[in-house]
């Protein structure tokens, strides 16, 4: 009998149907990988399972009983524990306190510390962790913090543990430890739903794999019967060429040049240039300084040194207003918190950055605003009932197009995309890529920060790789591949060069 069965799960949000009748099941003692592109519905499905969201339709049967979880607490009490991507812990509390948060043991109405510490020690030992349970959590490494989450799941006697991108912050060594523990948990009959973008991991650890695409289940197969190529085809549903409709635009004059840009502790001596019609991809690991770099260029963060040239002329950029005036635009990585005013209408968002030109005397001109936003709604194919619709009611793809429209209205010379397709469904991604092509053809210089290597490889003319706040190297479109980017991004290449230099030096002596 299956430990968990989810049948016909439907969930919609305003403007988007996130899940369209999904079936999903998990057996006891099984590691079940859940894969799919961003926006495929993985997180939504798991949030329904863990009580964060409620399904619009469908049923969940857990341990043979139909269940409805209205809160995460109810799911936890039933034995379903989620280990979230962004750790869900209190850094200034001790390991024990974090493990027991919400389920503290008491004696005579007071907290029973000796017993709790002892239990914490037992759980940590089980995970082969040599940590003092009294230590504040923030003193531990990220990998150990993650293990504390696992300990917490064990403490809650979880029958089913959901791991959402558990390895995103872990070193290779820590990943091995985690896998060993997953194997032990499995042997004890605990089931694990494992969500990851890293397909090698899901192959290494999982018994079965379920693929979601556009809110539907595409397949559930034993992992051993799948190949990476098959899996990617199932996830994407089309070839790479269709997925990234790259067109090479003629390369024009230099639009942006950055020389020796510094921000103490974050960015060190960064120099590069972008030409009209060119898409320069910026790759690097999380925390390498990619977002910091584009924010510094845009004037959103202060810089400690360096020069910026637009069309060959040096410009001073002290704040975003200066950047906009010089023709630079930034589509931030998080459009909801940094790109849009969700409570305002489509029209008001599109015109927000260019109201200066949409006035008649002292007053804003409704006619000019309407004309401008109508133009973009048509040319970018923004799906909205009307201009007055609140932006919060639109889907991620349409929201992203509205941010793009806002910037296009300022006639930018340099357009910076930070994670341009995050949280957007596959069809809308392709539309965004086509718009990038179109802009490049019209002579805009494009900078594109992205964590998704296929996207960087698929759309860039040139790729700049950042490692620990420095430029680790440039790769041309025809010489770039995942391995070379990763070499530069992890600093392996640099250290090799370093060593070969030392070697040469020793020879000369």
């Amino acid at each position, binding site marked *: 009998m299956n430990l968990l069965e989810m049948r016909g799960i439907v969930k*919609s*949000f*305003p*403007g*988007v*149907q996130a899940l369209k009748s999904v079936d999903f099941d998990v057996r006891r003692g099984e590691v079940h990988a859940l894969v799919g592109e961003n926006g495929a519905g993985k997180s939504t499905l798991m949030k329904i399972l863990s009580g964060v*969201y*409620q399904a619009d339709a469908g049923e969940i049967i857990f341990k043979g009983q139909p269940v409805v979880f209205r809160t995460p607490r109810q799911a936890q009490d039933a034995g379903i524990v989620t280990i979230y991507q962004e750790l869900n812990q209190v850094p200034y509390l001790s390991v024990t306190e974090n493990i027991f948060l919400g389920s503290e043991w008491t004696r005579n109405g007071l907290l029973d510390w000796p017993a709790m510490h002892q239990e914490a020690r037992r759980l940590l030992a089980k995970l082969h962790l040599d940590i003092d349970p009294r230590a504040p959590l923030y003193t531990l490494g990220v990998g150990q913090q993650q293990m504390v989450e696992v300990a917490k799941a064990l403490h809650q006697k979880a029958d089913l543990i959901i791991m959402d991108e558990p390895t995103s912050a872990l070193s290779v060594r820590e990943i091995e430890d985690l896998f060993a523990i997953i194997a032990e948990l499995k042997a004890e009959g605990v089931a694990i739903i494992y969500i990851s973008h890293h397909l090698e991991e899901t192959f290494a650890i999982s018994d079965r794999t379920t693929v979601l695409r*556009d*809110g539907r289940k595409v397949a559930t197969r034993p992992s051993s019967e799948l190949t990476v190529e098959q899996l990617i085809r199932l996830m994407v549903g089309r070839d790479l060429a269709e997925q990234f409709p790259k067109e090479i635009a003629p390369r024009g004059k230099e639009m942006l040049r950055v020389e020796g840009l510094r921000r103490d502790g974050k960015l060190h001596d960064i120099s590069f240039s972008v030409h009209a019609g060119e898409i320069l991809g910026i790759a690097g690991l999380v925390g390498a300084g990619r977002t910091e770099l584009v924010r510094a260029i*845009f004037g*959103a963060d202060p810089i400690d040194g360096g020069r910026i040239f637009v069309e060959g002329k040096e410009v001073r950029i002290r*704040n*975003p*207003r200066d*950047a*906009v*005036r010089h023709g630079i635009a*930034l589509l*931030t990585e998080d459009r909801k*918190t*940094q*790109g*849009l*005013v*969700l*409570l*305002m209408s489509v029209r*008001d968002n599109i015109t*927000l*950055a260019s*109201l*200066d030109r949409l*006035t008649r005397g*002292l*007053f*804003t001109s*409704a006619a000019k605003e309407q004309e401008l936003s109508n133009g973009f709604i048509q040319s970018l194919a923004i*799906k909205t*009932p009307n201009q007055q619709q609140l932006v919060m*009611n639109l*889907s991620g*793809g*349409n929201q992203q197009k509205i941010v793009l429209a*806002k910037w296009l209205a*300022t006639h930018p010379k340099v357009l910076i995309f930070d994670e341009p397709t995050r949280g957007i*469904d596959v*069809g*809308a991604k392709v*539309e965004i890529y086509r718009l990038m092509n179109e802009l490049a053809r019209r002579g805009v210089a494009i900078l594109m920060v992205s964590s998704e290597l296929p996207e960087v490889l698929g759309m860039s003319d040139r790729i700049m790789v950042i490692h620990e706040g420095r430029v680790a190297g440039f790769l041309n479109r025809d010489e770039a591949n995942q391995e070379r980017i990763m070499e530069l991004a992890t600093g392996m290449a640099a250290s090799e060069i370093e060593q070969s230099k030392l070697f040469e030096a020793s020879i000369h002596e």
Partner: protein
Amino acid sequence: MSETTIPAPRERNEAMEALRRALAATGPLLVLLLLILILWILSPPFRSPTSLMLLALEAAAIGVVAAGQTFVILTGGIDLSVEAMVSFAGVTAAILIAGTNIAGGQIAFGIADWQAVLIAITAGLAIGMFQGLIITGMNMNPLIVTLGFRSMLLGVSLVWTRGAGINIQKGPFLNFVTSTVDLFGLRVPMPFIIVLGIYFLLWIVLKHTKFGRYTYAIGGNETATRLSGINVDRVKVFIYGISGLLAAIGGILVMARLQSGAYQNGTNMTLISVAAVVIGGTALSGGVGGIWGTLIGVFIIRVVEAGLVYMSVPSNAKEIVIGAIIVLAVALDVIRRGDVKWLRFRRART
């Protein structure tokens, strides 16, 4: 994309949304009319034109103050200094007109009342902008900054008056300000006409100028607004300036009516202004709302107050009711946002 849009539930959402919006827009007005109707039925003295005019007069000063508060709250801030500004502006103008402080010491020869008023409201604007400068420049919490200024302004008013009122003789300008105008046989108080004029002007600013749009945008998402290349700090400095200016004008209206500048002139006006803004449909978190709702909010509070008088509730008990209205208004704001779990019946959004 097209396959992910689902027409049926969405249309229902939109119909609900439209209904909700219509209710939000007309709700306060309906409440006001209902309250007036109840009072009309229960209390014969209320039925006279005089009492209606008195209501309008009562609403004037707090109406101006609440208008400024609306701007501040729309940006997601709050101005707790307004009641002190009402007192301070009244005291300042009164001292300048009377040419004396309470000790009877001649500090200057009295100046014309319009000059005194101009100086007082300019001071209000300047002090408001100064608060805005501190809030934006030092990135300080508006709650604390304006609370501090409340204390300072009240303190200054107290020192200058030694705790008593400065009585004045009205000059031609203040006589005009406190006069009445005959409209269709009703004697409409001039302060109320001034208030309507100010509200109309502010409505134009909010609806049809960049400044107004940025006010909403900052309240809706300050980061996104800043990253759109807008000088958010400058807008906010002017927002607090407008609040200071309008509170000072409110202070002049109170002072002219009482013919006295005293440090108690503004008592309770901060809380009432915030309550009026929220009752009028502006979200305490900013970004949503409007100016006319605030005027209705002011009237709702004033009608309730008047009702207490007409129903012979002892005036000492008034505070209890006002306090309850304020708490209810904030509860309304939270409910409107859908943040109350046990009140959230099957909402579409999560």
